[in-house]
């Protein structure tokens, strides 16, 4: 864990905190984008190019934009002045997220004993190796994901379609 890691970690945590604490919803979404970017840079810091760039492409290019669209299309961006930024159920949320974090952390620590000991020899995975693995060993998982996404796409088209009887064109 070198110096760059701590800078990136600070950036990511600051972005995530700002996403929770800021008053204006669009500011929150932009802060969330900063947190996504921090995560992508952490991947790159670990020499995982594919994961890092895919994170930028999907999370900054698509998910952040989707969040922003959802905010703009559904409600006003300002939180009302009276009352804090937290909702009334903040304590339950805190407990749930702490529980999720604890389970994930526990699973990670259990997965490989002695992971944090000594300098790890980083396995150099090229994009080509990832591609070969996806097309070879994990092809079933890939196909299932593809099927799921196609179903989602068709579902979106059906939801967005005008409900008009008798006409072919929507």
């Amino acid at each position, binding site marked *: 864990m070198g110096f760059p890691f701590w800078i990136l970690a600070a950036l990511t945590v600051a972005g995530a905190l700002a996403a929770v604490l800021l008053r*204006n919803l*669009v*500011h929150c979404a*932009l802060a969330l*984008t900063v947190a996504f970017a921090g995560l992508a840079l952490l991947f790159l810091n670990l020499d995982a*190019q*594919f994961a890092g*760039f*895919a994170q*930028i*492409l999907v999370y*900054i*290019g*698509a998910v*952040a*934009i989707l969040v*922003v*669209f959802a905010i*703009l299309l559904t409600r006003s961006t300002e939180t009302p002045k009276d009352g804090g930024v937290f909702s009334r159920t903040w304590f339950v949320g805190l407990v749930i997220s702490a529980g999720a974090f604890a389970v994930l952390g526990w699973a990670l620590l259990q997965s490989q004993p002695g992971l944090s000991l000594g300098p790890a020899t980083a396995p150099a995975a*090229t*994009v*080509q190796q990832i591609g070969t693995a996806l097309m070879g060993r994990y092809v079933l998982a890939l196909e299932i994901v593809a099927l799921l996404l196609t179903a989602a796409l068709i579902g979106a088209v059906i939801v967005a379609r005008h409900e008009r009887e008798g006409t*072919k*064109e929507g």
Partner: protein
Amino acid sequence: MLEKADQIFILLRNWLVGFLPAGWQTAAGVVLGVIGIVAVFPGLFAITTVLERKGLGRIQNRLGPNRVGPFGILQPIADAIKSLTKEDIVPRDADAVVHFLAPVFLVVVVFMGFAVLPVGRNMVLVDMDASLLFYFAMGASTEVSIFMAGWSSRNKYSLLGAMRAVAQMISYEVPLLMSSVVIVMMTGSLSLVKIVEAQNQYSYGLPHWYIFTPWGFAAFVMYAIAGTAETNRSPFDLPEGESELVAGYFTEYSGFKFALFFLGEYLGMLSISGLGATLFLGGWSAPLAVLNWVPSWIWFFAKVMLSIVVFIWVRGTLPRLRQDQLMNFAWKFVLPMTLLDLVVAAVWRFMGDGLLRWFVCSAILIGVYVAAGRWGMRSKHFGPRSYRYAE
């Protein structure tokens, strides 16, 4: 001698770096590369603006700028001084921080894309394994900055322009990626350097560029359409349609911030042209084997400027699309055609050498194109034009 002309920038960098102590040389080399990119592409941007105004003037039967310098070629310098000295107005209700960050973010992200473009033999700033993915990741990030600009201005026109721009860019990013996937499939690499090397071969003195294959040509056409839309150029310039939205997402920008948006837009155009040249037109390789003595970087920039000229030509020729036409075109024509092109590329790959695959692949593509056109026209019920008010 010619060898030296080809590698002149590399030699120049190595010579300059040689003055420094050994520990600093790598870092200094990278900095020099960055300086090169930051100097050359805005220079091309200046040339492009004057070329565009002159070219559009010629198309529209007028002279274009002709006051500053001989034939008006010093116009960009005057423009730069003007935008530097103009007052920088921030609307009272604008979100000052986001309003300031948007143009900066846009220009930074667009410049990052140039880092992976191979502009000549051995001339690439970062030669990484997943450079194509990096390029698209950077391209996708521009959407955030456009949204930031439109939202922070607190102006209806700006917000409408930003929403249009983001919707359009997301829609056309899919075909843009898909048409590049064909190239990745055939090369077997995401590295732009390797993609150029795969095309830098000649048989009978003719190059192996991907555009000279049925699937490559189809992918190139789709790429050009999606790239034009991605850079918000006419006929896809709805986000900033002057007649409807003043200037779209940068309505409330003035002075140098406006110039930065302008710069970002033209740099985006240059970089999408550069990527197109790299993917389909052989990057820095010469169009004929006998022309290999010309330095490789000249070919790259010649191809980029040629596509810029086509961009200008298209802008002067085609009328603007309507929003629903724009979306229908992306999702109902361009995307299915790119998917078909993926299948055709696979057919090409597994049919082996020979003339037969040329006929089969071309027949599939042309057949589907014509059939889709006929089928689409049938449902439109085109008849003689009727004028509601003019008669």
